[in-house]
């Protein structure tokens, strides 16, 4: 089958943006406010308009001075706890441009009130600003996004004009990326100000500058046309070129004039190529788009083929293929359930079956386990890459399935670990990160159980999976503790701690039983748990005849026969 044809829609998307009233509306209020704000060199003032009941516009105007010479010594990045929420779990800290952050912090109390007010509104919310004003607008939008929840009817978009780069975070894996549109003229030196090769004198000495990352979509404009890009690397490259080609003299770009010109361009007839150069639509398209915004691909050494590969890989992942994958995962789970069922038919728990035997069906089970693990590790990793709050809402959709997976599959990992007899302390030494996260998220999301929950659980405990996916690891450790107690070479201290562990284990198991949180399969004859009970009972009988606990009573009375 031939490969699907590929296109670059950077120009079309840009024309859609330019044709809509959106940017005009955003820009319309900026110039007049700027004229009114001449007093301070670097001040920013939020203004809030509601031109129609359905639309709110917030403008961050910076003074003309601040626009022209925004940031003497302003390229520094500082870590900010205020924007910690931007960091995905996998990446510890976030740094923001100091000048933008200072301005933002100076307005914080005012902005807090504004934010609370805006979140309540319904409909379109356009947040905009020019130059440094745009930076503050973007920071404000980020805070707003973090405070919004799913119920919110406010639909924001942040549009900046000629704003410098803002920080070291990127939002490539976040839906938030869709809320930012940065309009940049190739005549404007400000957006590329903090980039290493920039010739701009005021920033040449900064060493930190290379860690700036763009986020959102850039609408890159020249007098000939415009194009939208959201690939951070490409944007960096283009900004670098643009800023190095702008003459050292800082000049103010009239974005209003530029937009008027682009708006006309978008409906005037475009040029015709004089001859085809690449023979495929993607390359012809993207080279044309880049040339429109003044980028010579040959000179810049831009890897068109690489871009094509990347674009193609993005189109591969479709909802349809995901639907298929999800069913494959269900199939693997069904196979493991069947494996469990087979074990039960033989009056064994599937944990013990997997731990103690080695037949073909274990090989099969292992394959399914691996398939599931790969899938869930990916899901967890994807959730981890998103900003914290978004990661949370992303995972709620599948946390239930993920929990079932964890309860089903982790016992098998544990069995694998203790099988050879050398395994010690699974939970701290071997437990995979994705299990830990799945468990942590489950605990965060779970509501405290009610009386009725427990009753209904009691009825169906026989078909439930053991809730604590590490239950068997605790059992294995308890057996090791028993062995250490009876082992002649153990020191007193070792024995003491082993005994302590066993006491705690007894309480833990009893609690699980009372909450109907363990599967009755643990009581099956010959199970690892019963094996532990045998050893433990013998030890108590021989050495601590006076000792009793609720679990000991429970087991001795044989109450477990009525469990489940």
């Amino acid at each position, binding site marked *: 089958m031939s490969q699907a044809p590929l296109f670059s829609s950077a120009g079309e998307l840009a*024309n859609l943006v330019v044709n809509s009233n959106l940017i005009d509306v955003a820009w319309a209020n900026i110039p007049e406010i700027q004229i009114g704000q001449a007093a301070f060199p670097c001040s920013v003032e939020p203004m809030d308009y509601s031109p129609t009941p359905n639309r709110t516009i917030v403008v961050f105007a910076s003074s003309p001075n601040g626009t022209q010479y925004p940031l003497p010594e302003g390229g520094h990045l500082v870590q900010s706890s205020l924007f910690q929420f931007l960091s995905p779990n996998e990446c510890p800290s976030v740094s923001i441009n100091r000048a933008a952050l200072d301005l933002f912090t100076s307005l914080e109390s005012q902005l807090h009130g504004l934010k609370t007010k805006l979140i309540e509104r319904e409909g379109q919310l356009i947040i905009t600003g020019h130059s440094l004003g745009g930076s503050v607008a973007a920071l404000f939008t980020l805070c707003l996004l973090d405070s919004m929840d799913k119920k919110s009817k406010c639909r924001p978009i942040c549009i900046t004009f000629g704003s410098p780069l803002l920080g070291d975070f990127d939002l490539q894996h976040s839906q938030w990326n869709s809320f930012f549109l940065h309009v940049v003229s190739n005549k404007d030196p400000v957006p590329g100000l903090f980039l290493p090769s920039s010739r701009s004198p005021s920033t040449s000495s900064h060493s930190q500058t290379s860690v700036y990352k763009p986020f959102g979509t850039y609408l890159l404009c020249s007098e000939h046309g415009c194009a939208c890009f959201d690939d951070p690397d490409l944007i960096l490259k283009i900004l670098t070129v643009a800023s190095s080609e702008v003459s050292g003299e800082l000049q103010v770009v009239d974005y209003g004039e530029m937009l008027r010109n682009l708006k006309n361009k978008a409906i005037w007839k*475009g040029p015709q190529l004089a001859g085809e150069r690449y023979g495929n639509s993607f390359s012809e398209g993207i080279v044309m788009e880049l040339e429109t915004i003044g980028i010579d691909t040959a000179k810049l050494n831009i890897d068109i083929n690489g871009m094509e590969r990347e674009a193609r890989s993005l189109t591969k992942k479709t909802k349809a293929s995901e639907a298929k994958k999800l*069913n494959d995962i269900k199939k693997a789970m069904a196979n493991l359930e069947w494996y469990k069922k087979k074990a039960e038919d033989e009056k064994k728990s599937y944990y013990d079956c997997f731990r103690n035997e080695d037949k073909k069906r274990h090989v099969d089970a292992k394959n399914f386990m691996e398939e599931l693990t790969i899938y869930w590790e990916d899901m967890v990793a994807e959730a981890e890459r998103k900003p914290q709050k978004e990661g949370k809402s992303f995972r709620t959709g599948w946390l239930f399935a993920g929990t079932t997976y964890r309860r089903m599959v982790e016992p098998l990992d544990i069995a694998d670990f203790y099988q050879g007899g050398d395994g010690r302390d699974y939970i701290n030494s071997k437990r995979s990160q994705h299990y830990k996260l799945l468990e942590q998220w489950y605990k965060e999301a779970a509501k405290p159980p009610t009386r009725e929950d427990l009753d209904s659980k009691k009825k169906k405990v026989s078909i439930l999976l053991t809730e604590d996916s590490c239950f068997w690891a605790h059992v294995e450790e308890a057996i090791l503790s028993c062995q250490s107690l009876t082992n002649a070479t153990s020191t007193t201290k070792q024995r003491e701690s082993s005994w302590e562990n066993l006491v705690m284990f007894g309480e833990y198991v009893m609690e699980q039983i009372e909450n109907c949180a363990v599967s009755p399969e643990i009581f099956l004859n010959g199970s690892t748990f019963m094996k532990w009970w045998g050893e433990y009972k013998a030890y108590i009988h021989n050495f601590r005849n006076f000792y009793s606990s609720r679990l000991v009573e429970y087991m001795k009375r044989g109450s477990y026969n009525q469990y489940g």
Partner: protein
Amino acid sequence: MVVWLPGNPQTSHCSLPLPHPRNYKTSSSTREKERERKMGETVGNRISLSEEIINRAASQAMRAHNSGGRPFILDKPRGLSVAIFAFAGSWLPDDWFTHPPFGETKMDTSTFPSLRSVGNDEVAVVNASFLRRFKAILDQLSLEKEVRKVVADNKQVLFTGHSWGAAMAILATLYFLEKGGPNQNPPRCITFGSPLVGDRIFGHAVRREKWSDRFIHFVMRFDIIPRIMLCPASIEHQQILNYFNPRSEFYGKLIDPHLAFYLKVMRSAASVATHDACNLMGCTNPLLENLRNFVDLSPYRPFGTFIFCTGNGKLVVVKNPDAALQMLFYTAQLSQEEAAEIAQRSLYEHLVYDNELQESLGMQNVVYLDDSLEELPLSSDSGPAIVNTVLNDLGLSTEARLCLRAAGGLENRRLRNQAKIDDNKQKIKEELSKLRGYQEKGETLELGYYDAFKSQEEKADFDANVSRLVLAGIWDEVIEMLRRSELPDEFENREELIELGTLYRRLVEPLDIANYYRNLKNEDTGTYMTRGRPKRYRYAQRWLEHAEKKPSGWRSESCFWAEVEELCSIKTGCNNGPLQDTKKQKIQQLQKRLIEWIQDGCLGKDVVLEGSTFVKWWKTLPSEYRSEPESSMIANLIHG
């Protein structure tokens, strides 16, 4: 001012309110013409309507403007086997837009039952004024009467119209297509300078029903009216309509400022075209999604066969609806120098269809774009000369050509997706036959496969579960593609698919229900029907219902078990008045339908096996829940 002379088709040419713009027609050399004629079929052959009929329709469409208050004129030309219904026009703003911005409404599905998507179950959108006025015409009854007469005469019914009349012709054609019997020759429709009438789903439904070929739309390259619906109702609209309206004081007068109206329409057309182009090109930028919150786009889209007239005697035929939309925008793009002239032409060209066609059809200089959309030359000098000449004549820039390529690419992608699904058919059939065996085995056990599956005791139950999941994977992929319009429009109207989907649904849905109630999901989430039913079964049920022209919900036999499970879970006996009453009703209805379904053969006999959940439950029902004759019939089924 008299514009159209009434009642005389020979002199129906409009006397132009404007001086003729500079003569832009250039005739190609005879030799070239000869060569090109050999390359292509004639338009008439291609659309199976003779040039004579097309010309006749054009003149009738213009003539109908002066119908003297009648909604249409009927022409039965001697020697031709057609009867031409030409609809009158209207320039009243209310007849174009009921409300800003776009004057659209949901299609009236009692009159037009097919104009919706089947699985996705969305109703098409149509211009509210057009619909209202068309229904008023229907109410006068004369249209239906005349059409019946013509059909009785064995004549081909042909609806036509110019401008607003074209919209009426389109709705009339659809109306009679919906009503048409299987042996009846379906009506045809030729429009001239038609405004857009319906949305994407409207066109999708027409193509799905394989009616698309019945519609031929002629569009002059710069004609403003075919683009006007892409633009929200505005003062410019009013100006344009006034210009054409003989009763208006602005009739035929230059619109001032002379370019604004054209720019306004083109700006809106550009928004729609670029938005759709982003989709065609598979844009992955998430900004696009958010922009939809801020950009108000016209819902209207083209459908049917478009024939663009270049203005110098050539015709360009395109059926791909996405390509047609891109053409509507790009062929009318301005260049700075010609701007003022083009604005005038956009009005003038709306009135010259009959003349232009007479010439173009005589020349037969035709290019069919659909076959080569994906390979269109991008530069003005590459590719086949004949194609490139017309693309240049239409003023298509490289950007425009890329958009057209993308439109062709999407259609080909849909076809490839369909082929991929067809490749899975064998796999589906294999899994279904395994499950069929499972079902039969269940019958020998006096239990039925539903209950066997629910207990999940045997290896066979597990294997059935794996088959269920394999099939779910295949069908879910199909459904996702449908939801994203990633399959050809006709996909849901393929008999083979409907059959296979029905087989699948009847055999496998009980297993999904068993799985749902086995895991007691109803206790946490709700009933299967409200919360648990997978889309793949909803879609398959809708396909069958649509093919049988039955209302939604008619073919719910595959959900039999879900109803039984829900009824079982309501405790009998406790004297809870209203609940018991509805339960009683439901039980009696279920018994009735059960008998129907079993007699129809769409529900297996396994449900009435002695050991099945249903029979066990049914036997416990107190006598007041059973009514005759159903009760004894069911008893017979159980023991028969």
